[in-house]
C-alpha cells in the first residue's frame, strides 16, 4: 500500500496437507502494517488468522506450504529463511496464545528471557540480566530480580503472559505479532494485558499485529482492521470505517454480536451468525460466506468482486449493505 510500510504481505497463500486432501488455510491475502500502528486481524477460529501469523514468522508446521508474491519487512525479503533467521526474535517478535505451555518447563524465567538477547546481541550474562529485570519491571512484575530464578510452573497465567511479552521485547523489536495473547486468561487479566500491550506499543513505537477472534478487543486497540473469513480477507480498512460503516455482511454480523454500552439494552438479544465456517479442504469458488449470509443470492456462487473506497476494501457482490 504505502511506501512507509514496515511489513508488506502480498498474495500470501498457505496450504496444509491433510488426510482428506489439501487444506487451503490462507487463500491469497494481502495487507501491510505501518510503523507504530496496530493492525488487528479478526475472524472466527479456523479462518486462517493464526496460520497467517505463523507464515509471516516462517514457523509453519512441516505439513504446511507457503507461497507469497511479497513478504517484506522494511524492504527486506523475509520470505528468505536466511533473512528471516536473522530478524526473527530480534527485529520481529511474537507472542503466543498459551502462556501455560509457551514457556519451557525445564528452564528458569531468567534463562529464557536472556537467551535471545544474548544470542542476537552477543551480550554478557550481566547485561542480559539487567535488561531482563528492567523489562519485567516495565511489564508490571514486582520483585523482578527474584522472578528470574523461578520456573514457569511457579507463575500464574497472567504473570507468564507478562513474561512472554517481556521476552518478546528483549531485543527491542520494531514489529510485534501477538496471536490471541489474552484468550487463555481471565477477563480481568485480559484487560490488564491488553492495556499493557497498547501502552508499550505507543511508548516504544512498535508496529503491532494482533490476531484475535474478539471484536471487542479490536474496537479498543486497533488502528487498522482486517476481517478474515475462510482463509480470505473479506473486509479491510481503518478501524473507524470498519466499525462505523461495515460493508461486508460478515463484518456486520460480527459487530452485531458485540454488546454495546449504552446501546444494547439489558435482556435484548445480540445478533448471531447462523451455521458454521465451511471446510477449507478443496477448491472454492464464489463467496465462502454465502451459506450463512442473510443477503445471499445466486450470483454469490460466481467470482466475487473486490471493491474499494479509499483505504477501505471489501469482497462482496453488493456495493453497499441494504
Amino acid at each position, binding site marked *: 500500500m504505502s511506501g512507509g510500510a514496515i511489513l508488506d504481505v502480498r498474495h500470501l497463500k498457505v496450504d496444509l496437507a491433510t488426510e482428506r486432501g489439501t487444506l487451503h488455510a490462507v487463500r491469497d491475502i494481502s495487507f501491510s502494517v505501518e510503523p507504530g500502528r496496530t493492525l488487528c486481524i479478526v475472524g472466527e477460529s479456523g479462518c486462517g488468522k493464526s496460520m497467517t501469523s505463523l507464515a509471516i*514468522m516462517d*514457523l509453519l508446521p512441516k505439513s504446511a506450504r507457503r507461497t507469497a508474491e511479497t513478504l517484506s519487512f522494511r524492504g527486506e525479503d523475509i520470505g528468505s529463511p536466511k533473512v528471516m*533467521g*536473522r*530478524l*526473527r*526474535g*530480534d527485529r520481529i*517478535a*511474537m507472542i*503466543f496464545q*498459551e502462556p501455560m*505451555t*509457551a*514457556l*519451557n*518447563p*525445564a*528452564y528458569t524465567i531468567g534463562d529464557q528471557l536472556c*537467551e*535471545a538477547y544474548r*544470542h*542476537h546481541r552477543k551480550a554478557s550474562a550481566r547485561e542480559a540480566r539487567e535488561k531482563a529485570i528492567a523489562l519485567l519491571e516495565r511489564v508490571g512484575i514486582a520483585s523482578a530480580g527474584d522472578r528470574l530464578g*523461578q*520456573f514457569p*510452573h*511457579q507463575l500464574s497465567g497472567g504473570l507468564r503472559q507478562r513474561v*512472554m511479552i517481556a*521476552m518478546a521485547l528483549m531485543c527491542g523489536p520494531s514489529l510485534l505479532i501477538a496471536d490471541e495473547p489474552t484468550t487463555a486468561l481471565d477477563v480481568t487479566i485480559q484487560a490488564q494485558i491488553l492495556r499493557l500491550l497498547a501502552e508499550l506499543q505507543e511508548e516504544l513505537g512498535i508496529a503491532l499485529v494482533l490476531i484475535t477472534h474478539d471484536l471487542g478487543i479490536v474496537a479498543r486497540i486497533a488502528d487498522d482492521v482486517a476481517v478474515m473469513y475462510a482463509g480470505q480477507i473479506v473486509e479491510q480498512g481503518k478501524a473507524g470505517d470498519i466499525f462505523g460503516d461495515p460493508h461486508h455482511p460478515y463484518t456486520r454480523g460480527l459487530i452485531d454480536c458485540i454488546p454495546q454500552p449504552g446501546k444494547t439494552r439489558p435482556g435484548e438479544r445480540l445478533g448471531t451468525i447462523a451455521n458454521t465456517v465451511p471446510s477449507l479442504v478443496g477448491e472454492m469458488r464464489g463467496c465462502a460466506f454465502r451459506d450463512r449470509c442473510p443477503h445471499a443470492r445466486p450470483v454469490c456462487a460466481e467470482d466475487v468482486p473486490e471493491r474499494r473506497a479509499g483505504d477501505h476494501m471489501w469482497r462482496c457482490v453488493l456495493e453497499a449493505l441494504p
Partner: protein
Amino acid sequence: MLRFATRRLALALLVALTVSAISFFLLRLSGDIAIALAGEGARDIDIEAIRAQYGLDRPLLFQYGEWLLQVLGGDLGTSLFFRTSVGALVLDKLPVTLILGISSLLFALLISIPLGVLAAIYRNTWIDRLALSIAVVGQALPNFFFALILVMIFSIGLRWLPVSGSGSWQNFVMPTIALGYYVAPAFMRLVRAGMVEVLSADYIRTARAKGLSRRSVIVKHALRNAVVPVVSLSAVQLGYLLGGSVVIETIFALDGLGFLAYESITQKDFPVTQAVVMLLSVFYVLLTFVGDLVNAWLDPRIRVA
C-alpha cells in the same frame, strides 16, 4: 520430595529382602547341598558330616535367618568350589562387570540418542525409516549370535581384537558392543517418541520465534525435556545389562560376575550363585531408586514444588 524418597527407599528395601528370601529358599529347596558337596559316590556318613559342618541339618527358616544376619554383617559365606570367601570372590570380579555394564550403557546411549533425535527431526522420511529398521533388526539379533559374528570379523578375520580374556581394554570392546547394541533400540524409540512429542510443544515454537539457532532449539529446548525418561530407563537397563553379562562374559571368558555366576551354576557352587543373584537384585533396586530420584530432580515441577 523427601517423603517420596523415603517411601521409595522402604519399597526398595522390602524388595531386596524378598529377593534374598526367594533366592535362598529356591536354591535350598531345589536339592540337597550336602550331597552335592560330598560329591558323587560319597558315603552316607560323609554326607552327614558335611550336613553338620555347614549347619544344613537345622530348620530352613533358621538357616535363612542366620544367613541373612551374616549377609548383613558382610559375610556372604564360603564358596563350595574355591573354598574361599564369597564376598572376596565377588568383590574381586565386580569391577570387570561394572566396567562392562557402564561401557555398554554408554555405547547404547551414544548410538541411540543421535539416531532417535534424527528420526524425530526427520520424522516419516527415509532417515526415520532407516533408524527404525536398524532398531527392529537390532532387536531381532540374539546377542550371543551377534557376539560370535563380532569374533568372526574382528578376531578371526581382521585379527584386531583378542577373542577372550580380560587383561586389557581391547578385551572389553567386543563385549561392550555385543551387550550394548541390544538395549539401544529401546532407547532410540524412547528418544524418538519423546522428541516427536516435545518438538510439537508450544515452547519449542517460542524458542524458534526467539530466533535461536536450530542447534539450540533442538539440544537445549527439546532434547533436555525429551531425555528425562531416558534417565530412568538407563537405570533399569543397566540392571538388565549387569544380568545379561552372564551370556556375554561367558562367550568372551571375561572374568567378571557374570562369568563367575555361570561357573558357579555349572559347578553347583550355590553360595556364589546366591551372592551374585542377591547383588544384582540389590543393584537393580538401587539403580531404579536412584533413577527415580534423578528423574524427579530433573523435573523442576517436582524439584521446586
